[in-house]
C-alpha cells in the first residue's frame, strides 16, 4: 500500500536559515510526487510537483525538491527562509495510474522574525 512519511512534525527556524523537510514514500511502481503548502487559515496550494525527467524540480517562492529514486525520497529545500514561509507543508504521492493522492501528516514550519 502507498504511504508517505514526513520526518519532522514541527520545525522552528530563524529567518535566512536554510530549510530541508524530509519526505519518504512507499510505493511499488512509478510515482508522481507533490509538495503542498497550507498558510494559516487557508487551503492547500501546490508548491511543486515531479512527474518525470530532471529529478531536481523548482517550485514557487524559491522552493525546490529532489527526487532520489533509490532512497524513495522527495525532500523539500529552500536556501533562505522568510517569516512569510510560516505554514504547514504536506508531501504527497500518487501512483502513475492511480486515482488517489496519499498525503503525509504534514510538517508545521515556524519562522522566527
Amino acid at each position: 500500500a502507498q504511504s508517505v512519511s514526513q520526518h519532522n512534525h514541527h520545525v522552528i527556524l530563524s529567518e535566512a536559515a536554510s530549510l530541508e523537510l524530509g519526505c519518504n514514500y512507499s510505493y511499488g511502481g512509478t510515482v508522481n510526487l507533490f509538495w503542498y503548502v497550507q498558510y494559516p487559515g487557508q487551503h492547500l496550494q501546490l508548491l511543486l510537483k515531479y512527474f518525470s525527467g530532471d529529478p531536481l524540480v523548482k517550485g514557487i517562492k524559491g522552493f525546490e525538491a529532489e527526487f532520489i529514486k533509490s532512497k524513495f525520497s522527495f525532500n523539500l529545500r529552500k536556501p533562505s527562509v522568510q517569516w512569510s514561509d510560516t505554514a504547514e507543508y504536506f508531501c504527497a504521492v500518487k501512483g502513475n495510474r492511480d486515482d488517489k493522492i496519499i498525503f503525509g501528516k504534514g510538517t508545521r514550519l515556524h519562522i522566527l522574525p
Partner: protein
Amino acid sequence: NAGVTQTPKFRVLKTGQSMTLLCAQDMNHEYMYWYRQDPGMGLRLIHYSVGEGTTAKGEVPDGYNVSRLKKQNFLLGLESAAPSQTSVYFCASSYSTGTRYNQPQHFGDGTRLSIL
C-alpha cells in the same frame, strides 16, 4: 473563474443531526475528492469520484455518503453527525485524462464543522 467553492464555510451541529456539504468546481475537472483534516493526522481521503455518477470509498468513509449527480458538483453528507466528525473538510478536484492525467489537485477553502 472561481475554482473550487465549498459551502458552507462554518457549521455547528448537534449529535444526530444531518447535513450536506457542497463542493462546486468550474474547471471541468473529472475527478473530485473529499478530505478531512485533523491536527497531526494530515489529510485523509473520505470519498472520491472519477466522473459524473461515480463514487468510491477512500481511507475513512464510515459515517459519510457522497453523490456526484453533476460533473461540477460533489456532495458530502453526514446522516447522523457524531462528535468524532468534528473536523475541517476540504474538497479538491483535478483532471484525469490524456496528458493532464497526473495534474495536481485544486483545493477549496474548507468547511469547519463542529459537532456538539
